[in-house]
Each structure stands twice: as C-alpha cells, then as structure tokens.
C-alpha cells in the first residue's frame, strides 16, 4: 500500500511538470482568489445594518412612554373606601359610628374580648416591650416563642410546631419550602388565596381537582401513576403533594379527610392541610378536622393554621412530625427572613390555648350555635345558604344570579347595608377578581361566634330576611 501511495505522489509531481503554463497560471489565480475571499473580503454581516446609531438610541429612549405605575381607580370603586371600626372589633362593634352585633369577624370563640388574654398580653408587654427587632435567627427568638411552639405541639399532639409572624405567610411559605420546581401538587379548586400564593411561589406543576371530588383527584393520581411508570427514573425524584383545606373558607364545607388519607397511602402522596378555619373550631377539643374525623394526626404530613381566627391573636403556625417541620426552620422564607412575632401576641396565643384546653365545652357551644344559625338561615327567599351545619363561617349566595358579578355584589352589599342600619354587622366576602384562580360566586359571609345569644341570632336572621324581601324580588 505504502508503495502504491508513493507512486501516486510521484505521478502527481510528474503531472505538475507536464502541465501547460496557462493551466498553472489559472490555478495560481484561483488560489489567490480563495485567499482573498477568506482573509481580505468584507463579509456580509446582517447585524451591522441593524446597528443603531447613538442618535437613534437617544431618540428611542426619548420616545418610550411607560404605562402609569398603577391604573387609576375610580372614586366609587367598591373596595376603595373601607368601613371604619371605632374601638375594639369585639362582639359589639361600632362600624361607621353605628353600634352593631358582630356577625363578621372570625372571632369564633370570643377570645378577642377575653380579659384573661388581655392580662397575659399586658404582662408580656411589661416584660418584653412590643417589637422583637429581629428575625428568629438573630436574637428574635424569645422564650415565649419556644413556649408557644411547644404548647401548640402539645395541643395538637404532634412532635413539633413552628410559628410564623403572619397568618397569610404561613402556608404560603410552607408549601415552597418542600415543593420545588418539577414537583407536583394536587390541589382543590376552592383552595384559599394564601395556598394559591404558596403554589405560585413553589413553581411546581399544579393540578387542580374539582372541589371535594375524590374521584376527580383519584383520576389525576392514576394519570400521574401511569406517567410515572413510563418514566420511573423521574418519578423517583418527583415529590407529590395534596394540598387541601380542613374547612374551606370559600365554600364553608369540610374536606373528606379519611378518603384523602386512603389516597395518600395508595398513591404515596403527602398531604398538607390548611386549618385556619377549623383549628379551634372542629372536634371535641378544637384540634380541627383530624379530630373531627378521628384521623390519626401523624397521617397528615403538615398542618398549618393561622392564629388570627379562633385564637384571636396574630400569626400562624405549622405542626407535624419533626422530620417535616424542622426543615422549615432553614427553608421557610417567611420564617427565616421575617421579624418574629411580637412576644405579647405570642403570650396572648398561649393564654388562648390555655382557655381552650381548660374548657373544651366551648367547642360544643360553638357547634350548637353553628347549627342553630345554619337552621335559621334556611329558606330565605332569594338567598341560598352554602356550608355545612358545623361551619362557623357560612355563605349566603344569590339564588338567581343576574349574570353580572358587580350588580350581584351591589345587591348583596345593599342587604349588608340594610342590616348594618339595623345594628347587625355582616360583610360581603371579598376577593381579588383578577387574581383568584377559580372565582367563588359572590356571597355574604355570616360568622358565628359563641358570644351571640339566641336573640342576636334571631334579630340578625330577621334582618337578613327583611332585606332579602326588599331587595330580591
């Protein structure tokens, strides 16, 4: 082979010698042409023609007009002018100068007015002052925080609890602490707004199932199972969560927890339960929806609730097994990066827990009141009562919608105003229309508390009835 190649080379050299001169000249020119093309020609650059001159840039900057920072709000926007409450927002509340019976604050157990709670808060104020001046990590952990955490854990019979300084931020921080990009969250359509914000912050895949529809959820879980079988490698690192509310704030009904737990173990999905409305309300001891259904609390991976409703303080907490909860101490953004809860508010929450522990009777009183109100609000012409009989925050929706949300709201608002004039404080449930994933129908919220007497309830119901007969014909 080597010999053959050599022969070819020799032959080439020979051919070179034998070639006519004009041929060599032509080839020489061609080579020079290529060299020129390669190194000396101006290549065609499409970018250059688009390049802007300084002047043009200046003009563009001059020309650009941004949109206004915020769109103008019309003066008569329904949520621009708030009702002003003078004095304490307790059972008797003064709204816009009128004293009313409160059927609107989530003060289910009436602890807002409790002198015991106030005394404890005052004692704490005398000891610690108001603010904490720091996040939990940097001298913002007070002994009362540790006490409240252990008391909450004890109350809920979980291994650990963690407190946040803002109820809204609790579940909204807890979800993204665990669920990351690529993970999957199955969530009820009626989930409240702070859950929705948590989902958004987690950047996971969100799969909505129909409200309280376990068949729909199972269908989604089955779909996912098939998907997982196709790609087991990915499935091994994809965390899956179900996020539900104990008692839904938007629909006033309860989640089918036993069924959810069954699905959890069947499809190996973790359950996060938001109990802001049910904590301190449901169950014999106010432990919430787990106690209501007799579900083992260890089967729920994370329970979150705020302390702004039944507990009548500020802030929120998560509780569950240490394995789960402890992770938030470094990953819960609302926990790590925010100033801690003012100690006096924590002290108030501790005292509220003590009251709840000492007198579990309060929960059966609340339950009785709830069913009483639920009973009384049945059959108001034009209005439809939404919610389970043991829910302390019920919704009255229009039986027939006019088809236009704002005129529906206007109608409901006039009912509320009518009642306000007759010293019954109610409120229209407020939502951000553009932000909600699934907008609940407009409604009047009726909140039941243990402080309401038979007379109060009777009066409120007759007011609503009267208003309905005036405005909804």
């Amino acid at each position, binding site marked *: 082979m080597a010999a053959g190649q050599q022969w070819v080379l020799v032959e080439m050299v020979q051919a070179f010698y034998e070639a006519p001169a004009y041929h060599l000249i032509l080839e020489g020119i061609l080579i020079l042409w290529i060299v020129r093309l390669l190194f000396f020609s101006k290549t065609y650059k499409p970018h250059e023609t688009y390049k802007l001159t300084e002047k043009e840039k200046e003009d563009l900057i001059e020309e650009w007009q941004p949109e206004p920072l915020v769109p103008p709000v019309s003066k008569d926007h329904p949520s621009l002018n708030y009702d002003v409450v003078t004095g304490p927002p307790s059972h008797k509340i003064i709204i816009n100068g009128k004293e009313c019976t409160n059927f609107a604050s989530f003060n289910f157990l009436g602890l807002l007015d409790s002198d015991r709670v106030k005394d404890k808060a005052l004692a704490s104020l005398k000891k610690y002052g108001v603010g904490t001046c720091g996040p939990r990590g*940097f001298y913002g952990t007070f002994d009362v925080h540790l006490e409240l955490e252990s008391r909450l854990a004890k109350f809920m019979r979980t291994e650990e609890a963690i407190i946040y300084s803002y109820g809204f931020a609790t579940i909204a921080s807890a979800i993204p602490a665990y669920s990351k990009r690529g993970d999957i969250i199955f969530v009820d359509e009626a989930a409240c707004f702070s859950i929705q914000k948590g989902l958004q*912050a987690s950047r996971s895949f969100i799969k909505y199932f129909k409200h309280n529809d376990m068949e729909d959820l199972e269908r989604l879980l089955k779909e996912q199972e098939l998907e997982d079988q196709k790609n087991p490698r990915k499935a091994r690192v994809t965390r899956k969560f179900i996020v539900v509310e104990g008692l839904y704030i938007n629909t006033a009904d309860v989640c089918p927890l036993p069924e959810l737990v069954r699905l959890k173990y069947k499809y190996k999905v973790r359950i996060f339960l938001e109990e802001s409305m049910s904590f301190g309300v449901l169950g014999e001891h106010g432990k919430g929806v787990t106690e209501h259904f007799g579900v083992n609390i260890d089967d729920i991976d994370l329970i979150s609730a705020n302390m702004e409703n039944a507990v009548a303080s500020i802030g929120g907490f998560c509780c569950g097994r240490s394995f789960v909860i402890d992770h938030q101490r470094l990953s819960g953004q609302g926990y790590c990066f925010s100033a801690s809860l003012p100690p006096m508010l924590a002290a108030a929450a501790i005292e509220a827990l003590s009251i709840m522990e000492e007198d579990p009777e309060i929960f059966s009183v609340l339950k009785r009141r709830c069913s009483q109100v639920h009973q009384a609000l049945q059959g108001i012409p034009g209005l439809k009562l939404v919610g389970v009989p043991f829910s302390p925050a019920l919704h009255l929706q229009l039986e027939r919608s006019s088809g236009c949300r704002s005129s529906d709201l206007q109608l409901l608002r006039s009912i509320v105003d009518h009642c306000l004039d007759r010293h019954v404080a109610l409120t229209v449930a407020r939502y951000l229309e553009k932000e909600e994933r699934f907008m609940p129908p407009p409604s009047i919220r009726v909140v039941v508390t243990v402080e309401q007497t038979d007379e109060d309830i009777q009066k409120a119901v007759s007011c609503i009835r009267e208003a309905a007969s005036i405005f909804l014909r």
Partner: protein
Amino acid sequence: MAESPATKEADGEEVCRSLKNGLKPERNGSARSLHRNRKRQNDRRCQADEEEEEEEETTPQHDSLYSRPFTESFEETPMLVAVLTNVGYVILIIFGYLRDLLRHWKIEQRHIAREKEEQKDFVPLYRDFQNFYTRNLYMRIRDNWNRPICSVPGAKMDLMDRTSHDYNWTFEYNGRTMKDVINLGSYNYLGFAENTGPCADSAAQVVRTYGIGVASTRQEIGNLDKHEEMEKQVAKFLGVESAMAFGMGFATNSMNIPALVGKGCLILSDELNHTSLVLGARLSGATIRVFKHNNMQCLEKLLSEAIIYGQPRTHRPWKKILIVVEGIYSMEGSIVRLPEVITLKKRYKAYLYLDEAHSIGALGHRGRGVVDYFDLDPRDVDVLMGTFTKSFGAAGGYIAGKRELIEYLRSHSHSAVYAASMSPPVVEQIITSMKCIMGDDGTSIGCKRLQQLAENTTYFRRRLREMGFIIYGNDDSPVIPMMLYMPAKIGAFGREMLKKNIGVVVVGFPATSLVESRARFCISAAHSKEILDTALSAISEVGDVLQLKYSRRLTQNAPSAHLFAENMFEDIDD
C-alpha cells in the same frame, strides 16, 4: 443564616454580571472613564486604593448630586486569607463526607429526625444530599443562632442559658439566664424596644381598650380607626400624600410588587436585594434583570438597553420598568446611591421602588430614611416601602407614595383582602414612636436619639477601623459588617464574644458569599458610650486571639483617612 440576600437567581432571569462586553462610550463618556470602569469590575472591592489616586485627576461631575460626602468601602480580601478560607471549607467538606460515611455504617449516631416508617417508600421529602451543609457545617456552630432571649431586646438583654449534649442537635434549657448581655444584634436602631416609657404605656392602654387581635381583614371588617390614624401619621412622617400599612414587612414586599408590575414589565433589581423583594419580583411574573450591587453604570446600561431593544424575542417595548433598591443593605452595610438612581430613573422614565427596611428611622437628620439622608424630595421616589420592625420597635411594613398608588393598593393589595389586619397595640407603638421621632410628643427625645445613633455609628466604625478590622459599608450606616472570612472563626467569634457577655450576629454562607463570612453589629441609640467601649475592647481582644485584624489599609495609608471623605465614584452620564 437568615437574611440571605438571595444572590442565586432563577434560570431564565438575566444577570448583568459583566460590563466588559458591549459597553459603548456614552455621549460624553470618555475612553478613560471606560477604562477605569473596567478596572473596577475586575474587582469591585479593591477600589479603595486606586480611587484615591484617581480622585486627584478627576473632578466628579455628579458631586453636586450628593449633599454630603458619600464614603463607602469594601476592602479587598487578602489573598492568603481567601486561600485559607477555601482550604477550610475543603477540610470541612471532606470531614463531612467521612462522617456521613460513618453514619451510614451506623458507627456514628444519627441525630437527625427520621421519616415515618410507613412513608419510607415515598419520594423523599428533601434529599439527604441537600442537607449536607446543614448537617455537617451549620450544625457544628448552630449555637450561634436562635439564641432565645427573655427580656426586652434593648441595649442589654437576658439570654436563656442552653447546653447541648449531642453537638448542637438538641438544646437543653437549664432554666438559668445570662443577665445583661450587651446586644449588638437587634435592629433596635432608635432604642424603641422598651418596656417602659410613653410608647409601652400607650400600647398597654390600647391592649385594654382594643384587645389583641382583629380577626378580620382591612376590606371586610378589620379596618380600625387606629389603622387609619397610623397611616395618616406615616404619610405625614414621610412627606408623601398617602400611605398604607401591612402586618408583616416581608409580606409587604412579596405581596405588593405583584400588584404593581406584571407580565411585560421589567424589574431591575440590585443583586443583594432581600429575599422578600426577590420573591415579590418572581411572583409578579415580570422579567427580572439584576444589576451589580450599587453599580450605577450597570443600572444605566440595563436601563438604556431595555428601552432600546424592548422585550426579548417579541421586541415590544416594555410596559414599565421598576427599579428595586434598598436603603441600607443589611448584609453589606452600604447605602444606596439614591441621588444617582433618581437621576437615572427620571432620565429613563422608570419607576423606583425603595425598600427602607433598615434605613427608615436610622438615617437622615430627621430620621426619615435615606431620602432624608440625601436631602431629596420623597416625591421623587415612586414607591417608598419600609418596615416598623426595626427603628420603631413594632412589627409590620408600609408602602407610601402618591394618592393614586395607595388607592390602587387599598383596592388591589392581597394583604388588604386576605390577611388579618394589624394588632392594635402594635399600631399604637408605631404611632407613639413615630410621634417621638417627629418631636410631635413635645419632647426632644426623638431628636436626641437620632443624634446619638449617628454619633454611636461614627464612633464604632472609626474605632473598629483603627483597630485594624476590615469593615464593610458606608460610614454612616448603623449596620456594621466586620469580616471574619474563615468558617471556623464564625463559630469561634460568636462563642468568645458570648463568653464576654456580648451577643453578636455572625453570618456565613449562604447569606454571604462562601469566602466573606462576617460578624454584623447593629448600633443602637440606646447604646451608651460605656457599653460601646466595653464591646469594642472585647472585640479587640477576641480579634487578637482569632487574628481577625486583617486590614492592611492602616499600615499603608494611615494618615490619609481624610481622603476617604471624598467622593470616590465617577460621573454618570447626566
């Protein structure tokens, strides 16, 4: 470990990491300023020395923008220290793996909480690997954080004594307390963390009359007269038309930025912005671009490019551009170059969101934050945000600005619709402390405190620098980061200081970059000269033992301290 400025950016978010490429001479930008500009980027922290020389040959045009000398320094990390720090981390990581191996073979006891037996076959909730750092590095020095206190977080505090028998996995409280620990950690700038005095008294009064909670939202039935009063007061204090308050400072950012910008808008964010701002920006759905910390050239470049080239791919013009900056950066102790930011924002018609979490109350001769500090018009800032947690000794946050802005937020803010309103006594604390700062209570207490804070800050910074520590940040910032660098020194410094009865904050990765671990002192008006002197001598002693006096500036140019008082940044383009 908290307060991470969240330097990690999500994929897809563009980061202006380098100016070298593509920087074009501006209208009147000279080649030399370009050249100097490049030098700075090579190491933004090494400017101190070269600046001094440069100052002599150039007269910065924008001097007029600043009403006072703007002195900020970030001394370069000594090379040897940087190398040793990295070696330290390598050793820690090797040992970490070794111990993980021992744990795996069950030679070393595992302390970490375990997953429930029935759920062992679930997808792990978090990967073990993710917690490597926590388990093997953080756990060694965990006793420096979350120290529980059991008194007012004032100039001195009482700490709960705690011991750990399992190398910081769990703590035991023996019921004893450490009395009168000097507090250099709390953000109690004006000393309003008090349990006596007019603020505490009127808060107590409000507890009696109003109670603790509200149990409703602002839009429903939780809008108390106290809230309205406080908001009017805040607007008056800041010198703007209107203000709105929210129950949590973190949520003020994360829930209101989405109300202001959205898809098709651009957010220009400082790389060291607080997590809450980063979260808010992400939730908004707007495009986020990050500029180098306090670097006005980078900001201007991003601004002009954004306007000229519009949105990526579609090339539509941006709907609006929002510049998001902080007043004082809590980890660097630096102050935003607000006069320049405002000039830029006006020139490019962008909007400005100023987070005054640390600066409100702590800066300015009237305590009205960074705007007051530079003697600017608060109306030039579109969105003034701040917290009540720090200088006011309360809790929550506010947004202030034009009437239209606040009206929009009142009707569209997430917090007004879905979150419980603020606790009345906390609101009262804000009202009284703010009145005190404004002098509306008829005393000069507030004024004195502001003065005291400024004096304390200057004194503390000067003394630390004289001792030879590397101190970051602006000369007038009460947040004083002192560099420790090496991971072992984080724990050692925190513990040694506590032995001397001084509580300090130490921070390391991930709140700072890996090399730049630091201690952070927050100066308060409540600190007396004796307290500061005690603290300083303790810091000096511990600094000698741990060899923390890294600064080489002292030996190099001891007599030229006055040179720092000159403005050391060159002109922007206008």
